[in-house]
């Protein structure tokens, strides 16, 4: 027993120590630094203060936080709406097609993230293809702006995070027992009714994972609003970067990051709750149920 304990420490030590030092402590540091004053040279001053947190009540911030949340919710909803039928279709395809289709879905996302955003910038450019096609069809006027607003951010958020919704939904849909749908229809349910009352509850775990996989990174997105949005469509990530790189006010950036962490923490607690009750990590499984 004692020997086993020592072996456990040896094997856990390296990764535990590394992550504690370079992940755990820095995360705590964010909270601490948000109570420090800024020094005029872009560093962190001595002493403690509430001033930074108080300055967050500036009316700009609630608007930015609200925009961040609604854009993330909208992106999550759109991703689920597209991923559900598409994932279902792939899961029902003949076995040898499934992997090929999933590969086809994943390949574009092996390209650099920035290049994918840039591809949309080219497409939505005032002289780009989409604008010109839309003008030829009479859909757009020369004044139509396709970029630099919240709509463009939402579009690219969906583009970027849709595969993260597709993968868990496909994984859950592939494991689903489709005989249940036939049984529901035989028992008099309509196709749509069977879909809502049998299929959706059956893949519930996949759905929640998909929603969180989109929602959390969307909350913290910074490059997408930076490149696709305008001055009036900033998200909280933009403000963190601005405070860090433009004003070089690290305590202020920390307070914003702490705020974002708290916003992320709510869905994260949901994940953990969901995972502890489910089956994924062996370490978190209650020991009573272990065989």
């Amino acid at each position, binding site marked *: 027993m004692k020997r086993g304990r020592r072996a*456990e420490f040896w*094997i*856990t030590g*390296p*990764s*535990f120590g*590394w*992550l*504690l030092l*370079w*992940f755990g*402590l*820095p*995360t705590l*540091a*964010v909270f601490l*630094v948000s109570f420090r004053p800024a020094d005029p040279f872009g560093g962190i001053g001595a002493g403690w203060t509430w001033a930074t947190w108080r300055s967050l009540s500036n009316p700009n911030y609630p608007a930015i936080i609200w925009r961040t949340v609604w854009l993330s919710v909208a992106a999550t909803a759109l991703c689920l709406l597209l991923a559900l039928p598409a994932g*279902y*279709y*792939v899961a*029902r395809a003949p076995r040898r097609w499934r992997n090929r289709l999933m590969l*086809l*879905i994943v*390949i*574009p996302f*092996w*390209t*650099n*993230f*920035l*290049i*994918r*955003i*840039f*591809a949309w910038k*080219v*497409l939505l*450019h005032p*002289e*780009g*293809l989409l604008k010109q096609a839309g003008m030829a069809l009479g859909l757009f006027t020369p004044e139509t702006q396709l970029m630099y607003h919240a709509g463009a951010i939402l579009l690219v958020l969906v*583009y970027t995070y*849709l595969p993260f919704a597709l993968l868990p939904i496909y994984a859950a849909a592939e494991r689903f027992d489709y005989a249940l*749908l036939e049984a529901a*229809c035989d028992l008099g349910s309509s196709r749509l009714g069977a879909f809502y009352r049998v299929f959706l509850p059956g893949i519930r775990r996949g759905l929640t994972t998909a929603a969180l996989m989109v929602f959390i990174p969307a909350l*913290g997105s910074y*490059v997408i609003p930076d*490149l696709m949005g305008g001055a009036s469509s900033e998200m909280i990530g933009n403000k963190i970067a601005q405070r*860090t790189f433009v004003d070089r006010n*690290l305590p202020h*950036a*920390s307070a914003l*990051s702490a705020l974002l*962490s708290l916003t*992320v923490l709510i869905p*994260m607690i949901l*994940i953990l709750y969901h995972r502890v009750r489910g089956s994924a990590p*062996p*370490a*978190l499984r209650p020991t009573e149920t272990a065989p």
Partner: protein
Amino acid sequence: MKPGRIPRATLILVLLFFYGPILILAVSSFNASRFGGSWDGFSLRWYRQLFHDRAVWDALRNTLIVALVSTTAAMGLGTTAAFALHRYRSRLQLWHYGLVYAPLVIPDILMGMSLLLFFVSLRLPLGLLSITLAHITFCISYVAMVVLARLQDFDFSLIEAALDLGASRWTAIRHVLLPLLAPGVLAGGLLAFTLSVDDFVITFFVAGPGSTTLPIYIYSMIKHGSPPMINALSVILLALTFIVVMLSQHLTEKRT
């Protein structure tokens, strides 16, 4: 019961949505015109310009150094982490799991910001070293998760058989466990490598002067001009990706 028409239409729509912008980007990389508005004829001028740009090659070198070092370190640390998580069920592993899992779900910007603060507080100079430390940290979690998934399917009676047949613990690990686990560790390493090469946000926060990586260079190209060169660069990266995917697909199909 066959899937209806709506699911198929959605899948086709999604694929068009995914490939459309990238294909248009690829086509315009061969356009002689500086502004993508009109087609001025086929040209390799942007490719030539890209190859003569020293900064691209420097950025590529930095990216590969960081990716190779951090992948190697993360493969080691991630594999031991997965072992510990799989083998033991103590309170320590609960915390361990939290530390391994949290970097996967936390937004990149928070990780970048917190590491920047930490490096500044420690007075650690920002550069390739700080970037590599950051990359090792997020890569560990991905390797650990991939290896952990493999361990869950692993048949541990093979190890017991080896021990029963007289192998020492170490021999059993070296000659039975590791060879069988190698594909999992390699898959985790491949994932870590791609993530490291691709990472922009965390790198941007902890980078210093002279440590420009390829994504940071691409970002500054997008922000400050020379777009046609990015088109050319993206086509090259896309082609490389395609080759790697096809190769790995080919390898795994042969093995099974």
